């Protein structure tokens, strides 16, 4: 290989990288633009909102938009509702997944595989199929407009059970045998051996479930009636409709959107790597 062709190919490779960089940067800007627009709109005066061509930045940031937005709907209450729903639902589902996965991976039982197939079958049934019957069940249990109704119907675990079963099965049996010889039961094996070793997987699962539950919209929409029981996504949805009567400006809506999104952005910023990798791992495995 001559010297010139070598440097030539390196040059094309650099050009390729430059083109790729520009293309990806454009895509990132286009995808990030709505977020930017949301932030600047939230800080604008109404005269800067109702104008064309659009103004990119407010002359003076209108921070009071946030307090106006906060008063439009009981967002404090919505925050409490969303937090209770997310925290209790996530803890319940993670625990259910841990116990199920341990049973399927580490407890000897003749029909274990049959039970596993039942759980596999549950994966085939989309939750959208269950909306109407689950509403009826929730109603019969007297759980409409309660935290129980918001949380319980969606804490059964397929995805987490798979993920953790895989993790528990990959652990070396000697670890567990030693504990068994010392007379330790399954609870010790689970919480003393299996769980600490699976911490990264459990953390990923927890993050994934927490963000999914925080963003739930359809089920809370169905199962709540009173304003007091609405979660944040529902509160936003109501605000977006109130806006149609012209009392709430776009700047207030965008401020409300930011009030809801900022905690999520902080979490995303801190745990972005785990979230992305967890989700892609989950997609390929589950």
């Amino acid at each position, binding site marked *: 290989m001559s010297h010139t062709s070598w440097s030539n190919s390196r040059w094309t490779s650099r050009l390729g990288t430059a083109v*790729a960089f520009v293309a990806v940067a454009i895509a990132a800007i286009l*995808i990030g633009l709505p977020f930017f*627009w949301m932030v600047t709109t939230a800080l604008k005066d109404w005269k800067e909102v109702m104008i064309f061509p659009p103004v990119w930045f407010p002359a003076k940031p209108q921070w009071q938009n946030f307090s106006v937005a906060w008063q439009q709907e009981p967002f404090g209450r919505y925050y409490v509702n969303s937090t209770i729903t997310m925290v209790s639902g996530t803890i319940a589902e993670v625990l259910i997944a841990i116990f199920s996965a341990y049973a399927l991976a580490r407890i000897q039982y003749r029909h274990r595989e049959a039970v596993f197939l039942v759980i596999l079958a549950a994966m085939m049934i989309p939750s959208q199929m269950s909306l109407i019957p689950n509403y009826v069940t929730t109603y019969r249990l007297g759980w409409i407009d309660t935290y129980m109704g918001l949380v319980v119907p969606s804490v*059964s675990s397929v995805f987490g059970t798979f993920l953790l079963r895989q993790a528990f099965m990959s652990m070396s049996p000697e670890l567990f045998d030693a504990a068994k010889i010392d007379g330790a039961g*399954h609870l010790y094996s689970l919480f003393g051996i299996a769980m600490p070793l699976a911490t990264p997987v459990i953390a990923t699962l927890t993050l994934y479930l927490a963000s999914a539950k925080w963003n739930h919209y359809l089920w809370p929409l169905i199962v709540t009636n009173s304003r007091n029981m609405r979660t944040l996504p529902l509160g936003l*949805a109501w605000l977006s409709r109130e806006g149609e009567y012209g009392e709430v400006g776009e700047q207030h809506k*965008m401020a409300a959107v930011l009030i809801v999104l900022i905690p999520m952005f902080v979490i995303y910023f801190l745990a972005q790597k785990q979230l992305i990798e967890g989700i892609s791992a989950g997609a390929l495995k589950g």
Partner: protein
Amino acid sequence: MRISLPFSKARKQSAARTPGSSKLRRKETLTFWAFIGPNLLLFAVFTFWPLVASGSWSFVRWDLISPTKTWVGLGNYRKMLDDPVFWKVVRNTLWVGASALVIRTPLALVLAVLLNRRLPGSQVFRAIIFSPRFTNKIAMAMVWAWIFDGQFGLLRAPLDLLGLTSPDWLLDTTWALPAVIIVLTWSGLGYAMVIFLSGLQSIPPVLYEAAKVDGASEWVLFSRITMPMISPTTFFVMITSVIGALKVFAIPNILTDGGPLWSSATYLLYLYDNAFNWFKVGYGSALAVVLFLFILLITFVQNRLSKRWVHYN
């Protein structure tokens, strides 16, 4: 989706079990059921029973409140065939699925291939492009509703520059569905890209090095190595795109609520309206059954096709 079943391993372990330990075995069995019981109970009540209930309610007329259900046989299904709105939402949902296949999937693949070149700042780009997936859908839909505003919307600006009149996107029967599709593409692109990226990263670099030694061009590398090696990933993304279209709800619900005149209504939106706004439980259940059958069909086709077309190493 590949799941390793533990049959062989379990056999080996149970063979090693000490004889005469029936008491211990009973204790093991009890522990097993205690550990997995809650999950199975929840499945029974909130997943399997709904399947049976939806199936049987699809043959009745019921308003959710009255104590009696009226048997109508196949009436709900027959009504579906004659219901123009049903066909409208089916068509809309197919458009959403098709857009995911022909717009979102190739775009995601291209972005993943580009990002995989170890670009400077690729972590930041990946985080930005993925971020809509993590953002609350209601919040995103509200921002987009504002961007689509016919008078003051941001999207009017580039259209004006091109000398085009901006439609009033969300109030226009022609443009409401494209608007919904734009938002869905925007929000789902990053997820598909991340899945592609992890597929790309699982390709052994040796393959590329060997081909490069033989003087293969970038295009040859892409079409002869990358594409076949990530075909399982591509297949996964395509299948989830089609199934995903059936589950779209929040974004059209906020943007247009299916309007105007059902022009942007998707399948689940119509199911919701029937069941929870109009209390047509029977018809809603029939819609749910059809949705379920459709997903079963796709999964079945997926299994068949993936054996024939997809290259698993």
